[in-house]
């Protein structure tokens, strides 16, 4: 099972910050057009590289503390957390090939 896990203010630490693998977190909201476009790409990247990276989703409407804590000012924003810290940040829509290129260091 490689579909992105849904995390929230309460579960973020356990599921993302303490995760063994780097985790690609998709900060999104239901009303955001580009987010809907990007979510399937995140899923595809997660499936293609399930051995290297985990994927998770944060609904920024329901989890404003997380959105504030990580200074989300634009969605979709993707953040890779590795060893509990932000290791990379991607903003806006991009196709799968471009995302894999930007995340190369985590997928190798």
């Amino acid at each position, binding site marked *: 099972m490689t579909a992105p896990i849904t995390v929230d203010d309460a579960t973020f630490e356990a599921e993302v910050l303490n995760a063994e693998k780097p985790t690609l977190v998709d900060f999104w909201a239901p009303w955001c057009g*580009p987010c809907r*476009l990007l979510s399937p790409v995140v899923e595809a990247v997660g499936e293609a590289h399930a051995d290297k990276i985990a994927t998770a989703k944060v609904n920024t409407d329901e989890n404003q503390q997380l959105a504030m804590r990580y*200074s*989300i*000012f*634009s969605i979709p924003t993707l953040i890779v957390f590795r060893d509990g810290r932000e290791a990379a940040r991607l*903003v806006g*829509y991009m196709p799968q090939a*471009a995302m894999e290129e930007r995340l190369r260091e985590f997928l190798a």
Partner: protein
Amino acid sequence: MTATIPPSTGTADATSTDTRHHKLAIIGSGPAGLTAAIYAARANLEPMVFAGNTPLGQLMITSDVENYPGFPGGIQGPELMQLFRDQAERFGSKLLDKDVTRVDFSQRPHRLWVGDDEYQADAVIVATGASALWLGLESEEQFRGRGVSACATCDGFFFRDREIAVVGGGDTALEEALFLTRFASKVTMLVRREAFRGSKIMQDRAFAHPKVVVRWNTEVTDVRGEMTVNELGLRDTVTGEASTLPVQGLFIAIGYKPNTDLFAGQLDLDERGYCMVDGGTRTKVEGVFVAGDVHDHLYRQAVTAAGDGCRAAIDAERWLESVGEIEASTATNW
């Protein structure tokens, strides 16, 4: 949405040269391109749609679309575009979600490339649309997604009770500024000249709004901050005097640029880069037609783009018939 056309990785989706020759190629997959595809597919032209790396056009970054006929309760932009796509595919259009990287319209059939993969088409409909313009500052790029945005409907929510600025003096800038007053505590509009270009009614609303402040003759020279934006460097366009403005957000609404870099030297473009049409949807190049925002800077609506796509498909079919690429008897009775 396809502002920049990055080099394609060029993986082969079509496997034989046979599948690479098409009666009709459509470049672009917004309302214009997909409406052209629906009409062309129903006329058995089996159109090949080069949908681009960021397919389905500018409506993909909008939220509610309230003015598309047939949806009295409104519809989300991305949902509407998925319906366009479903309808185009239902009648046999093929969509490739990759950017065309080069074209050669100097001979027929016309030639198109996606990376190293070459395609040929008897007729082409150009429907690549337009993209929002950016200021072009290095610091603007650096803070994109960290306070700099070109999409108020996407990002306004994150600026609740913050002070922000909107750059631009047209209708888009006025609309964005007024929309952002729902969230921001103060919206400063930075206008390069001493007047708005936008409609009177929108100007009146902006002037009347207690949260909106207008600064004339002002341009942004720099975006500053630590992790996120906290200040803009400004310059007075008349006196040259520099100043600063503390804000947490900067929204860019300075207009649109047609996505026509690909066609430079191939199609006639006006001084702003828009495709020029030569009667209806025709261009000066035989067999090449245009539809939507790539030539229309006046209306720029989903419904006008869709209407234009329909016209281009009909023009393309009639042209194909006239040059004998399809038999007259098979041409659709529109």
